[in-house]
């Protein structure tokens, strides 16, 4: 029964996407919407991305330093490990999981509220493709700008490790800087960006889907918001495994 329900839900999700990917009614309105969504979903998330990245970068540096007891291991490995953890996993997957909570709940509750207050019906009655009008700008804004947020997270995470070496006596600054420059694989950055594009799409579409199909009132909007975050997180983790296998093998 649960399997059938999941298949039906997947079918509804695909049908919604079919409605979303249509030509916008007015391009100037669409671009304005993209800018609004960028401001609401991305610009307002910069601060949380920066704060979390700085602290996680610092923690990774401290933990790596404390756990490297072997004298055979060069000390610059701390910087190298911090950089690779941030590039490979934290700035893309973990950052997108955090954004699924912040941005995903925002999208689901906004669209869900519009549904229960008949604003979506109003759009449909006017002859506007409500799915395209409401969801497509969110997808475009997320897919374009989440990778930039991920790049920002990489920089600020590495900066967090730098602060540890600067303000504590755990590791000399020069050793940390040498470490973050050692054995650098450019492809890791591209890998991270590719993953973040997929994750951005997942957050935007799944959250919109849960918001769009709300029936009822405030209670159901809250439930949809929670479901959107949970489902986005699970799908992000699933795709993290799949993409890692495909892109790094």
């Amino acid at each position, binding site marked *: 029964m649960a399997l059938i329900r999941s298949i039906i839900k997947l079918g509804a999700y695909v049908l919604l996407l079919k409605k979303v990917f249509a030509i916008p*009614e*007015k391009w100037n309105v669409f671009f304005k919407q993209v800018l609004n969504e960028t401001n609401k979903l991305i610009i307002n998330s910069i601060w949380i991305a920066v704060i979390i990245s700085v602290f996680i970068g610092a923690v990774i540096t401290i933990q790596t330093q404390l756990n490297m007891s072997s004298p055979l291991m060069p000390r610059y490995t701390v910087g190298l490990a911090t950089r690779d953890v941030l590039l490979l996993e934290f700035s893309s997957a973990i950052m997108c999981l955090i954004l699924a909570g912040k941005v995903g709940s925002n999208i689901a509750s906004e669209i869900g*509220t519009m549904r229960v*207050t*008949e*604003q979506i019906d*109003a759009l449909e009655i*006017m*002859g506007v493709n409500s799915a395209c009008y409401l969801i497509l700008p969110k997808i475009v804004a997320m897919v374009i700008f989440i990778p930039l947020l991920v790049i920002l997270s990489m920089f600020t995470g590495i900066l967090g490790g730098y602060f540890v070496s600067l303000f504590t006596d755990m590791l000399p600054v020069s050793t940390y800087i040498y470490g973050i420059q050692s054995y650098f694989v450019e492809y890791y950055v591209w890998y991270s960006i590719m993953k973040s594009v997929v994750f951005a799409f997942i957050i935007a579409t799944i959250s919109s889907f849960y918001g769009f199909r709300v029936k009822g009132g405030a209670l159901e909007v809250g439930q949809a918001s929670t479901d959107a975050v949970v489902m986005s997180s699970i799908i992000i983790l699933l795709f993290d495994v799949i993409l890692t296998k495909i892109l790094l093998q």
Partner: protein
Amino acid sequence: MIEVKNLIKSFEGQEVLHNVSCLFEEGKNNLIIGQSGSGKTVLMKCVIGLLRPDSGEILYDGRNLVTMTGRDVKMLRREIGMLFQGSALFDSQTVEENVMFPLTMFSDMTLRDRVKRALFCLDRVGLKGAENKYPSEISGGMQKRVAIARAIALNPRYLFCDEPNSGLDPQTSIKIDELINDITKEYDITTVVNTHDMNSVLGIGDNIIFLNKGHKEWVGNKDTIITSDNKELNNFVFASPLFKRIRAAEVEDDNQKIK
């Protein structure tokens, strides 16, 4: 004019509308009345195309909504204005932007002309000066008037109002009714109102359709409803003591005229 022919609609095997046929006339206030669960909202949602009927025809001046292509439905909807029960104004937009929305989406008017038209519509519903406010900053009655202004912005041929007086005080309700009536006559549009409010029924009911358990039970107008001998209709309309007294007075008056 909108003609509904033999409309049947069911949900999960349970028939909610049973072979309903009715006519919504141009230049008149066409009211759909009935108890909760009688199928009023389902009928209205079928007529505006938010629900697909199981069978039957919905003819907008001869154009059958049921058999139309998606593109034609979209075009038809641009001729429709709708006032929702909860107003359904866009929270993130100001009053002026709300009224301008259909113009922005479907007209090639310049910004200056759109603003001019929006201000005209707001003036028409008596809301001059409220254009920069957000929906959350105005009262329920004002929200309804903004929704009417938005509905008429594109000069619709058909206006649908779902419970326009719900949640409003009697005085504001009368004002909203008067506004709907004035707009209907002024622009000669086909207006369909879904209502429970007996003041509306007696005030603006040019053509009244009474639904009972999914059946069309009675058709008439505000003058004939008072003296109707339909039992189901009388139970619905004259449920309150006030309306019972009005009916008694009317019937007595009629009897005296006959004598």
